[in-house]
């Protein structure tokens, strides 16, 4: 067999590497970097996608207006309550379910698969069937309450219950995500640590507090980070379940950006709004990651 032909001297390892990653980089440039830079440019203008015409620079006018707008402050507060409520509830429930599953030896796979089903569904589908279930007149939830002799509740049309309903539906769908990551962390805890603790006659609570939680905590925090970013961007459930109502009491920041962008086609303002949301996520993520790194070092 003749020896394989040598590679062309022009095709160095470095060039080959560039050649391989170039398609992915170009795609990233076209689909992510360019739109982001374009949105950044538009955010300093009064451009409107439907009105067209040249975009006039307003410099930081859009940013100032957004940061000083009472409407935006109200949506930010709604989003904050939603993120804290939903992610907090999901973390507690997800970790609890994962902990209980991790203690089982039989049927663990089946249970995990069953718990993951809600996460596989489209948020629009989830929103639609929860909208029917929470309907005040013919929904199954009020029907259950009625059979227990309780008064029906206006789940989606009252200020407090509407936001709680959103948190509950999001928790129903995304608790499995936290559970999955927590379960991965729990199963990775070395068994010998528990064995050593048993020899020392450590209590269940002591073992949980000093072995389980510290070892799972960093992984759990990453899951919380992902969920918090997702919850911060919430749009679809609001759109389907409450349309931001009653009034604007369940309008999140993303839903408000949508209205600014598509009701009046104020593309410049919407771009600045989007950029500010990205900045908030980046800053908070950086702080969070620093805390995580510090935790690892400790």
């Amino acid at each position, binding site marked *: 067999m003749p020896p394989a032909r040598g590679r062309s001297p022009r095709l160095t390892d470095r060039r080959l590497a560039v050649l391989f990653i170039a398609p992915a980089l170009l795609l990233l*440039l076209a689909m992510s970097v360019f739109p982001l830079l374009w949105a950044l440019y538009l955010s300093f203008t009064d451009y409107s996608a439907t009105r067209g015409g040249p975009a006039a620079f307003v410099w930081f006018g859009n*940013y100032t207006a*957004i940061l000083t707008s009472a409407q935006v402050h109200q949506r930010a507060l709604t989003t904050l309550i939603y993120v804290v409520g939903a992610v907090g509830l999901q973390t507690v429930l997800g970790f609890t379910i994962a902990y209980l599953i991790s203690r089982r030896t039989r049927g663990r796979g089946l249970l995990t698969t069953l718990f993951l089903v809600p996460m596989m569904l489209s948020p629009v589908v989830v929103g639609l069937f929860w909208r029917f279930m929470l309907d005040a007149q013919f929904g199954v939830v009020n029907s259950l309450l009625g059979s227990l002799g309780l008064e029906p509740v206006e789940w989606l049309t*009252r200020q407090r219950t509407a936001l709680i309903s959103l948190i509950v539906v999001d928790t129903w769908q995304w608790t499995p995500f936290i559970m999955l990551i927590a379960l991965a962390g729990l199963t990775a805890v070395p068994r010998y640590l528990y064995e050593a603790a048993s020899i020392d006659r450590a209590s269940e609570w002591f073992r949980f507090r000093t072995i389980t939680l510290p070892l799972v905590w960093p992984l759990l925090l990453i899951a919380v980070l992902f969920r918090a970013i997702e919850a911060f961007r919430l749009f679809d459930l609001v759109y389907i379940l409450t349309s*931001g*109502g009653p*009034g604007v009491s369940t309008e999140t920041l993303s839903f408000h950006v949508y209205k600014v962008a598509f009701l*009046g086609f104020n593309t*410049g303002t919407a771009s600045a709004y989007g950029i500010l949301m990205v900045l908030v996520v980046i800053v908070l993520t950086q702080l969070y990651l620093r805390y995580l790194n510090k935790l690892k070092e400790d």
Partner: protein
Amino acid sequence: MRHPKRTTGRKIRLATAALLLVATTMAACGDDGGDGARTGAPKAPATIPELSADPLTLSFVWFEWPPAKALETFANEEYKKVRPNATIKVNTVPNANWHDAMFTQFAARKTDFDIAILDSQHIGEAVTNGNILDLTDFVKNNIEVEAYDPYLLAAYGQFPQAETGRRDENASLYGLPLLGDTWTMIYRKDLIGDQPPQTWDEMISAAEKCQTENPGVSGLAFHQANGSDAAAVTYNTVNGVYGGNLWDAKAKKIEGVLNDPAGQEAMDVLVKKMKPLTAKGSGNWFIDEVNAAVAQGKACIAFNWIAASGGLLDPEQSTLGKSREQILDKLGFATLPKQKTDLVPLGGMGMHVSAYSPAANQAEALNFMKWFEQADIQKKWAAAGGVPSRTDAIQSPEFLNAGPFNKVYADSVPRMRDMWNVPEYARLVDIENTNVNAALNGAKEPKQALDDIAKEQQAVLDSSGRKGGGGL
């Protein structure tokens, strides 16, 4: 010396990437500049250009509701008789996405539809942005304008907006009527009697009495949702009946006009007298939910758009009877009660030709519109379930006998009033929807909600010279 060489190569690659980015940006800017230079609507030819002999699909965009299906079936059956090579396709989107679905395509300067079915209030936005054709010359040459009630012709085509009840013959036309509509009062004859209430106060009293006497049946059912124009139309209707005004169109003034004593009285009637007579949790009801309540016998009196009421007579969708006749023994349809005025809301939509449609499709669209507006076709459209706008078709037996609510429409035509038809419509209606919905669901006091609507809407109208933050 490897190091300097590598640095040079990296610089070249960085420079190339930066150039690529700048070139792409310039390309995007350049494209925008070309189209963006267009101001106002381009003109349609006065006469229909030569039509294509090749197979052609004429696409409409509308929202999902029974008239959309009726239009597609009717047009394919009838229009094919004169244009066998043409196929009509009515694409539909959910009602809440209707405006966005059309205007995001307009924004892209490329549409997958040839005829946009715009709400009357969308015309200002589409005309100002140059999204639809100016049909003024085409209408002069091809349409019998005197065959229409002037206000109907104006409402579905004229911009700037006509005064209520009139048409400005010197103004431009950008559309032609497709489907007329207004609200009908639907009442339970078996529960409140054969005679419908004549005044708004009588209507509220009848609903209250009916609700008390029939546990499980709510006195009233009407649109309250904060999507589309649901809650806004409800308030505007009560506002009109109680002698209020939405705005002073000439002075572009809303604050102090909408929230004057008449407007406040209307809001109080809606929130304090009408809302307590509705079903619990009905604060997000729109067309379908109101129809469902009526069909299930859960409402004494309801208000809904006529064009969406056909399903109420379908025994398969109703618990009120096993045949149309049995249902009609229980359900009555009447024009809205009067109070201080007899105004009713103008609904319905017109046909508008997309400025971005290919020339052959634009020609076919114009031909379709000319064909559709003929007297005999309008009567056939009426018989097929449509609501025509030509006076001869409205008064024809084909229309009046097609449904029990059609006479309601015919009697309501001289009483109609529309909302604002301005480029800022989408924002104005959202402000009103969210605030009325908040008042109806206890999230705001009625007076506060009305004052907020007036203040926020005025700010939208006054914001044209604002530097930054438009849309907030």
